[in-house]
């Protein structure tokens, strides 16, 4: 219904289009009350099963339990111990993400517009990308130290490749006709990027932004696992070493929430940027 309210009918043909579009979307994502309550039910059942199995079927030190994890989360926030770890991981995530995204977009557009640069550099990037990033983590710790720098570097590199390939492949989808049209209008290179390339790449860039959030988090957590003295990844790792399973699960849940917040922000951006498609 909300889709219908947003559109204001202009021509009959157009509102028919909008209705058809709304129907198509409704078929794709049936977000009715029924579905929502069904989803909630599944989650409740899973959590209940977790609570039930914990200590009875599976030892509690392996899977903890929902109540223990909830207690730990409350403790972490009431004592305030969590804030520094949460802050550090968030900082690493954001800085690494931004660097990776910017680098991926810039290099992707550059290689997408220059055939020579692409021929020279793309195979090298492909070779670099074939290295499992996790294997580089110890090296990055040597280079950038045990602090934030190494985690930011790992996250940035991971996000860079996701973004680069999305943008680079997306460059191939720019219609020649539009390029020619803008050239004849007199568009400079910068105008071409601003008016044509970036809008045309909105979808692959948004896809990269979304996937990038979880990739950045993988980079950060790997860095924190390998060597760190703070951060949520460090907290999870440390809790594991201490057989403190509520801590492990509480840390994982916080990491998950952090990623969900990031993806939520990208989704807001997506709604704004893709308004013209509705």
């Amino acid at each position, binding site marked *: 219904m909300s889709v219908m309210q947003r559109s204001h009918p*202009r*021509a009959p*043909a*157009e509102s028919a*289009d909008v209705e058809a579009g709304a129907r198509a979307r409704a078929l794709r994502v049936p977000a009715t009350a029924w579905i929502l309550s069904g989803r909630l039910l599944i989650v409740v059942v899973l959590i209940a099963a977790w609570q039930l199995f914990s200590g009875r079927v599976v030892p509690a030190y392996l899977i903890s339990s929902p109540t223990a994890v909830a207690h730990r989360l409350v403790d972490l926030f009431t004592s305030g111990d969590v804030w520094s770890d949460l802050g550090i991981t968030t900082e690493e995530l954001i800085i690494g993400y931004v660097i990776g995204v910017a680098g991926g977009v810039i290099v992707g557009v550059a290689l997408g517009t220059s055939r020579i640069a692409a021929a020279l550099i793309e195979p090298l990037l492909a070779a670099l990308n074939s290295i499992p990033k996790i294997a580089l983590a110890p090296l990055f710790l040597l280079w950038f130290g045990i602090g934030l720098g190494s985690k930011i570097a790992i996250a940035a590199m991971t996000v860079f490749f996701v973004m680069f390939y999305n943008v680079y492949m997306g460059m191939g989808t720019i*219609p020649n*006709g*539009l390029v*020619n*049209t*803008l*050239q*004849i*209008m*007199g*568009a*400079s290179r910068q*105008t071409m990027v601003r*008016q*044509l390339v970036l*809008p045309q790449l*909105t979808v692959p860039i948004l896809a990269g932004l979304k996937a990038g959030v979880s990739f950045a988090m993988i980079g950060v957590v790997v860095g924190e696992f390998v060597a760190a003295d703070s951060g949520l990844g460090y907290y999870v790792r440390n809790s594991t070493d201490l057989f403190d399973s509520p801590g492990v699960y509480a840390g994982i849940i916080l990491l998950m929430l952090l990623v969900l917040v990031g993806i939520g922000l990208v989704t807001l951006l997506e709604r704004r940027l893709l308004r*013209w*498609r509705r």
Partner: protein
Amino acid sequence: MSVTEPTHTIDIASGRHGGAEQQASIRIIDIEQRFAPPNQPAFNALEAVSFDIGPTEFCSIVGPSGCGKSTVLNMVAGLLRPTSGRIQALGKPVTKVNTEVGYVTQDSNLLPWLTTAKNIELPLKIRGFAKSERERLVAEWIGLVGLEGFESSYPHQLSGGMQKRCAIARTLVYDPEVLLLDEPFGALDAITKTVLQGVLLDLWSAKPRSVLFVTHDLNEAITLSDKVVVMTKRPGTVKAIVDIDLPRPRNVYEIGSDPRFGELHHELWSLFKSEI
């Protein structure tokens, strides 16, 4: 004499055609285009193509598909360099993208993320027009092409005909001295096509300029043009240039019943049919 013999050596300076008597605004001089697609034998798309277009002349190119009509247009627009031969536009050789032309293509090539008004405004923005001037021109051209009420619609919300109106407005809004149109109405239904031919003729009559119009529709070529260049099948060359001596202003809805229209159609068709 309205038909010139097929020739590979048209004498540009002889001024046989109306437009060439004045200083021509586009001169296409003996161009050849050779294409060498990968894994395929090279072929000549165009050979020894020469003709002129006068400063206010409406010239159509007709020819079978694949004869290189669009290639000629792309060359005048500077998007493609001929393998040999020269192209002059407004007295200067075309050696790079020609921003003094306006180009309307078969696909409207509107930017899908811009509204009608923003699409029409884009070339003005690129060309550095002041904001107030841009607003005035956009409003004026939305009126001229009859898109009032659709200023804030996106291209996908417009019909094919309305997209075409928008593309024409976007091209003429910056007042190019030369207008290139590549089968602009090819994908439209017959009625919309006729209506838009009328719109185009009105706009051209209000401010005549050089027009190079590619089509494979002989009726359309006769209705609109001062002269029609008939091309041969590949390798495309100029088979004949037919002057269209129908009086102006023309009524696109009634011109077909003019007896002279029938004669011209017959003449063009007899040239055209051996090339199919």
